[in-house]
Structures are given as C-alpha cells and as structure tokens.
C-alpha cells in the first residue's frame, strides 16, 4: 500500500475538506430523505395532543381520522379577537410566532365538539428551566373552566421538571376554573402551600406543584397566563 505522508499541511487541508464534504452530504441526504416521515409524525402528534385535551385518547396513526371527526373549526385570531381568514391555524408554529410582536402574531384556536359539548383548545408555549415547554389547554363551553390540559417539554430534568408530562400532573388541571367570581381572569398557579393536596377545590386557581421543579412550574403557570390573555378579547366578543 502506498504510504501517504499524513503530516503535511496540504494533506491535512485536503483531509479536512474531504471530510467536511462527505459528512455534510451524508447528513443533508439523511435529513432531506427523512423529512417527510418526520413531518408526518409531528403533525400526527399535534393532532393527538389536541384531541387528548378534550378527552379523546388515540394512537398517533389514528389521530388524523379522529381529528377531522372531532375538530370542527380552526381559527387564527388577531390580538383584538378578530378572525384572520388568510392564516391556517394548524400551520402556525408557536415557536416562531411567539417571537413576533403581539400585533403581528396570530393566535390559533381549535374548536372541537364531543357529544354536543363544544370545547375551545388553545396551544401554549413558554419557558421551563432549561428550554421551551409547550402544551394545549381545552376550555369548556362556558369558556371559564378547563376541560383538560397536556404539556410537553424540550429538556426539563427527568424526574423533576419533566414530570409535567405525567398523567397525574396533567389531570390536576381538569375542571379548574380560570376566572374569579367577578369574571376577572386569574390563571392557574402551581403552589406547594395551597392546603389542597387532593385538589378538590377547583375554583382556587391553584394546583399542587412538583417538588424540585419550581422554575418549570412557574414557567408553566406564566405560559398559561400569557397565552390565555390574548384570547380574552375573542371570548369577550362571544360572551356579548
């Protein structure tokens, strides 16, 4: 075998350039050939999450069919509660949308009907301890009470912040009331001192926090408040 002198500058440059080209080509090929499959997975998961807030549990492949069955309307709202027909609500990516100014943003709202009950589903996105957290909440027909919630996260600590994705945590949000008696929006606080560990009081605007996950919990509470307030104009219009 012809011995190559691997220590010359020109060889080093040649090797580095060749390596970069090969690696870039490999990764670009892998990413573009797998993109379609990955996008389908993401789309189905979004549908699955939206459905689960209104109590429809389904597998990912089935989500597409059930989504068309239960979700009757997808709205893109402006900050004044007007409907923007030009924007497809399902295509709105909150990760980028949330960086725009409030005037520029469109707020997606999904309307679902299960056994004659109407639900309003709001996508959420905010910050946890390490990275983004997101989720969906569904409001009941009265637009004051939660039907259910799902949460997910990018990189919260396993066993602590990552517990927000656990069923026992998400179930705490069922039937919680977001508004006080005067109709003022209150949101939901995660607290360790609410003297209501069984979470029987649904109108205290509080659920039990996770020990060791205070920052994730506060981020989650802020996320609900921040996102929810943009929908209040629309809901007020409906109430009138």
């Amino acid at each position: 075998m012809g011995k190559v002198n691997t220590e010359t500058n020109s060889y080093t440059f040649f090797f580095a350039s060749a390596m970069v080209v090969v690696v870039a080509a490999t990764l670009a090929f892998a990413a573009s050939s797998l993109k379609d499959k990955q996008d389908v997975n993401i789309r189905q998961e979004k549908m699955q999450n939206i459905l689960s807030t209104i109590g429809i549990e389904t597998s990912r492949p089935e989500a597409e069919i059930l989504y068309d069955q239960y979700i009757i309307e997808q709205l893109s709202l402006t900050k004044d509660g007007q409907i923007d027909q030009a924007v497809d609500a399902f295509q709105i990516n909150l990760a980028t949308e949330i960086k725009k100014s409030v005037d520029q943003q469109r707020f997606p709202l999904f309307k679902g009907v299960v056994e004659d009950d109407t639900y309003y589903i709001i996508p959420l996105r905010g910050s946890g301890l390490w990275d983004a957290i997101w989720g969906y909440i569904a409001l009941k027909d009265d637009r004051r009470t939660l039907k259910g919630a799902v949460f997910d996260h990018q990189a919260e600590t396993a066993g602590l912040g990552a517990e927000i994705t656990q069923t026992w945590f998400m179930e705490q949000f069922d039937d919680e009331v977001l508004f006080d008696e005067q109709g003022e929006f209150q949101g939901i606080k995660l607290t360790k001192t609410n003297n209501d560990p069984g979470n029987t009081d649904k109108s205290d605007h509080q659920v039990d926090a996770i020990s060791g996950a205070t920052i994730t919990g506060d981020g989650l509470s802020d996320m609900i408040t921040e996102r929810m307030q943009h929908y209040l104009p629309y809901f007020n219009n409906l109430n009138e």
Partner: protein
Amino acid sequence: MNKKPYVFFITKNLKPKSLLSSADRKLLVDPLDDDNPITVQVLGICSALAITVQLRPAVVMAISVVGVMAASNVIISIFRNLIPSRIRIIVQLVVVATMVILVDQILRAFAYDVSKELSIFIGLIITNCIVMGRLEAFALGNGVWRSFLDGVGNALGYGLILIMVAFFRELFGSGNLMGVQVIPDSIYILGYENNGFMLFSPMALITVGIIIWVQRSRNRKLVEEY
C-alpha cells in the same frame, strides 16, 4: 486507496484467530468489571449523573451508546492510517457527532416515541468522554474487529453502571421502576416516604461511590497498593 486490504488484527505478536479469541473476549468483558469505564477509568461520569433519575432513559441511553460507540470505533479504525494526527481530535468529534445526528434523525422518522423519550440525551452522547476516550486510546491504533469489540465492551460497561445507578435512584427516589410503581401503597401507609434526595445529582455520585466500594471489596485487583 479503496482496494487496500484492511488489517483486521494487529498481528505483531498475535496470529489471526477465530471470531472471538480469548484476547478478543477480554476486550468485550474487561470493561464490564476490571476496566469499567465509569468505576475504574472514571470516564462518562457526567452523563451518569444526568440521566440516571429514571431507569427507562438510562436503558435507552445505554443502547444508543452501544450503537454510536461501535460505529465510531469502526469508522475511526478504518481510517486510522489516513487521519492526520494534528487534527485527529477534530476528526473524532466530527465522526461521533455525525453518528449521533444520524441516530437522532432515524429515530425521529421511524421510532418517534423513543426519540421523544430521549430528547436531549441523544445529543449528550457527543459529549460523552468514553466515546472519544476509546477512539483516541484504542481505535486509532487497533484493527477494525478489535475496535468494534472494544467499543461494544466499553459501551456495555458504561450502560451497566448507568442502569444500576438508575435502578436504585428510581426505586428509592420515586418508588417506581421503568415508570411503574413497585413499592406497594401499603408500605406508604405504614409511613414509608420516597427519598426525594435520590432525584438530585449528588446522590448519583454517592451511588456510584457505593458501587465502586462494593466492586473493589469483591475485586482486590483494583485496589491500589500503598
């Protein structure tokens, strides 16, 4: 260059042998105990702290590390005579990162739920000192088959400790194993409480310490002479 016959064995003093000679078996088995990457070489401690809160991510991490280490050891070993030594660390890093990204992309397309479960842990493999440590210490100077065995062996040794630590942390920290409750409610009623401290990183270090203690009291070879 492509037609060059690859040397699968370092044949200075070893003749090519059957698929798993005793020397080869040593490569595979030593890292499980005598030469364990975590408890003896003290590599890869960072991820042993980070992802051992629950058993399931630890198991999947162990499997992914086996794949990534075997593949990158093989690739580096194939190219070991072509890599300029001045940029060899960069080359190793690029190979590991490429493997990890490929694994991540493939999981996202074909095993979406597993990839969600792993999220950042997959990326963390890049920073795992064991992977680069074995590339630098072994694959650069050894044949392909032996490098493959070394990669698999070290990854298994790493995974073994990871799973042991995660077992104790999940059991005592949350009373679960693989996310399923194993400590019966009746014991909680008697006043037993989960030890929340187990969920924090320091307890991983202490658990690793206890494992090292047990290992050394069993295996006197590992005890340093003074």
